[in-house]
């Protein structure tokens, strides 16, 4: 088997996990006899669930059209939340023993509450993290919530959840994030050719698979990638931005690349945002998980958080500069309030920095790929014309 075959074999296995999270979880549960806990995006410290001996699974959007979920949430909620309640109503959540969340996006809370009504036998625990990060008293408040989680999980999983166990889980997750970041760095530098779909598989599967098992796959994959083929140099380099909580459809990524582009970087949740930040490895693990929450927003700012000193748009412009991306496609999940609210700030900065960009709204059902292709091509036209400007001048 050559290197490419080996890469494909690993990616194939991870693609299977990414496309069937509940199948993976059911098999894991059968094998281990332990609990599967659904955790909701975007700031949940999975380390605690892992340290409690359960499988933390970041609940994914399901591709199925919304059916029974329509009787739980109106159609003007984001695709992720509608899919969650639909999966609950259509009994796809049987594999989970409980659900935990820390984020307080208004749509997510509505969905979690509807889920609580629909499947009352499954505990749904909210340890609401204060979204405003500027106040001197917020860290102490977050620490209390981390401790609440620790207490609730210890009780629910009948686990000790000792400092050492948490520290071991933190180390495993940091390693996972680090390896994924190395792959990102290789992609950014153009040293490897990894498609958007493949990158998504790597991150998405890390949200599902037991972290130790995922680390084994990445351990095998990284050296193979390092010796692989570089990305073609003649493609337009793009940065993908946004798309909170759930992954954009892979077909959309394929289409964008088919137009003659290469995705060099992103700040998608099912992307760099998810793996950008490590938990401090030393000292009190509860303090470290508290710190992680704040660090995440300074590393890759998120408009679901409220922080006066941090600006997503600045981060975006900086990242584009660092990766050499020639344009940005903002992927906005329809009805995603925190993203809609922040979009004009992003647009202003991209215009100010003269970075060509395109806004694409995605929906749970219906992806008008051909229409979108025309818009992507128009963006590429702008980028190419800009490249020619110095020649034409």
């Amino acid at each position, binding site marked *: 088997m050559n290197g490419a075959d080996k890469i494909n074999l690993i990616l194939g296995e991870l693609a299977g996990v990414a496309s069937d999270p509940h199948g993976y979880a059911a098999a894991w549960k059968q094998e281990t006899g332990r609990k599967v806990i659904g955790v909701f995006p975007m700031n949940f410290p999975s380390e605690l669930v892992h340290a409690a001996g359960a499988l933390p699974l970041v609940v994914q959007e399901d591709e199925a059209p919304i059916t029974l979920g329509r009787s739980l949430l109106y159609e003007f909620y984001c695709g992720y939340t509608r899919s969650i309640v639909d999966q609950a109503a259509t009994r796809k959540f049987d594999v989970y023993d409980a659900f935990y969340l820390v984020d307080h996006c208004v749509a997510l809370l509505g969905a979690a509450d509807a889920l609580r009504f629909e499947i009352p036998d499954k505990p749904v625990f909210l340890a609401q993290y204060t979204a*405003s990060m500027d106040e001197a008293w917020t860290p102490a408040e977050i620490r209390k919530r981390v401790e609440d989680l620790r207490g609730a999980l210890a009780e629910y999983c009948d686990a000790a959840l000792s400092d050492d166990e948490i520290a071991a889980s933190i180390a495993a997750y940091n390693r996972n994030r680090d390896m994924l970041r190395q792959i990102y760095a290789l992609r950014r530098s153009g040293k490897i050719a990894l498609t958007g779909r493949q990158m998504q598989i790597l991150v998405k599967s890390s949200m599902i698979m037991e972290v130790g098992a995922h680390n084994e796959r990445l351990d095998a994959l990284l050296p193979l990638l390092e010796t692989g083929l570089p990305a073609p140099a003649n493609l337009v380099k793009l940065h993908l931005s946004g798309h909170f909580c759930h992954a954009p459809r892979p077909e959309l990524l394929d289409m964008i690349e088919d137009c003659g582009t290469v995705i060099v970087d992103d700040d998608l949740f099912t992307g760099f945002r998810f793996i950008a930040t490590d938990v401090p490895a030393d000292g009190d693990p509860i303090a470290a998980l508290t710190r992680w929450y704040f660090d995440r927003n300074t590393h890759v700012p998120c408009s679901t958080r409220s922080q006066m000193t941090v600006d997503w748009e600045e981060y975006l412009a900086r990242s584009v500069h660092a990766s050499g991306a020639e344009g940005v496609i903002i992927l906005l999940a329809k009805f995603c309030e925190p993203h809609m609210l922040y979009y*004009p700030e992003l647009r202003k900065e991209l215009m100010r920095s003269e970075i060509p960009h395109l806004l694409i709204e995605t929906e749970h059902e219906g992806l008008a790929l051909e229409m979108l292709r025309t818009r992507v091509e128009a963006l590429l036209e702008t980028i190419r014309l800009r490249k020619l400007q110095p020649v034409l001048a």
Partner: protein
Amino acid sequence: MSLIKQNAQPKLVIPQTGAPANRLVSTRSGGKMVKDYWDRLFSARERGATVVWYNGAALNPIFQAAGIEWCHGEAFGARLAAMHLEGPAQRMGEEYGYNQELCSYARTTLGCAVLTQKEAAKYVNAGDGADVPDIPSQEVLASKLPPPDLFVNAYAGCSTGQQWDEISYRLFNKELPFFKVSYPLLWGNKADAGYLRGEEWMEASRYVAAQIHKLIEFLEFHTGRPFDWDALRESMHYIKKAAQLRLDALALCKATPTPAVFWDWVASIAPINFLPGNQDLVDYFAGVKAEIEQRVIDGVAALPGERYRLAFDGIMNWNKVGWLANQFADHDAAVICGRYTHSSFWNEPHLIDEDDPILGMAQHYLLCPFNHSTKTLGELLLRDCETYGIDGVVFHATRTCRSASNGQMVMAKMAQARGIQTMVLEGDVADASFYKDEILMSRLEAMLETIDVRRRNF
């Protein structure tokens, strides 16, 4: 289309009287008080006053005691929508980049913020090449707010409410002081959790109270004046009295036929939500209560032909209030209670300790009607249905407000399980374009017919 059961039944032809509604006369003075408040606010700059822009909870007694003038963002958005003047601000918001699916309160007020920053003129430049043509200048002026000196955000139950001020802060170039109060949702992880009870409730109350103390320190710092605690106690004394009068008056509407309707209470939202705590406020609600008492004595009904008693769940539809009131009245449907009017706005005055009001104030802020679990919301709805003898519930599915829409479908199921009819009204808080009037009418008629059928059968 919503799958909430619309209870389709065979059609009965029952004549509706559609007799004109008797709106309360006493609420008119509230309109004047509110107008005077805004007029005074618009001249704040000329008077050299400090102005705070705030969103969310009724922090006005704090500002009053701090000696600064307060501009409530949602109230301003509601005011524009009620006057049908939201257009220029919303168009400004759209030019600035806001999607129509975004909270229309936020869109309106952020549009105002952009307008406030620009010179009000025939053409208003959005700063990135976006021009808003053809806005008559007096409408632009109507959308202009007195510029802020500081921001305070205190939005319970809705993440958008908090993020909105984060943007306002940025629109003013991140130069103004900004304080945020954060609220936990009253979610109910623990078995003892419930309305006004349990460890979570007390913990959340103390957390918010501590933040209010910090807010007071922030205001002292920025005004350079010590906070006037006596002034706070005094205004909370009046607010507590006014709130109790309002509750007493609401309770009088248990009578059949009801002496006042939801739409009368909507007219009293602004006074209880943001007018100064003083004797005028007490007099206003004393007047409302007296008028209702007299109606009960005289047997005067709000709707002379009252045939149906309904509840209204959700946030208000400011640009359609009058229209909706008429539609329901035309069908002899008395909307008697609502989440927005009955479960909000200093609605538990017994919590306020006049000598030490902060904890009780914090608790009211937590009691925002969008800051409860669905279970609690459903229980409060069923409680009101029983109190007021409700036949049916109208759920306002508010297109751009996920916060007010959360839980509604579950609440509808809870009501249906009790034999209460339900319908969904699709609309919005401050964007009239989301209404489909004919659908609303046919759903209302279907629900009223079902109520008739049930009455005949039971």
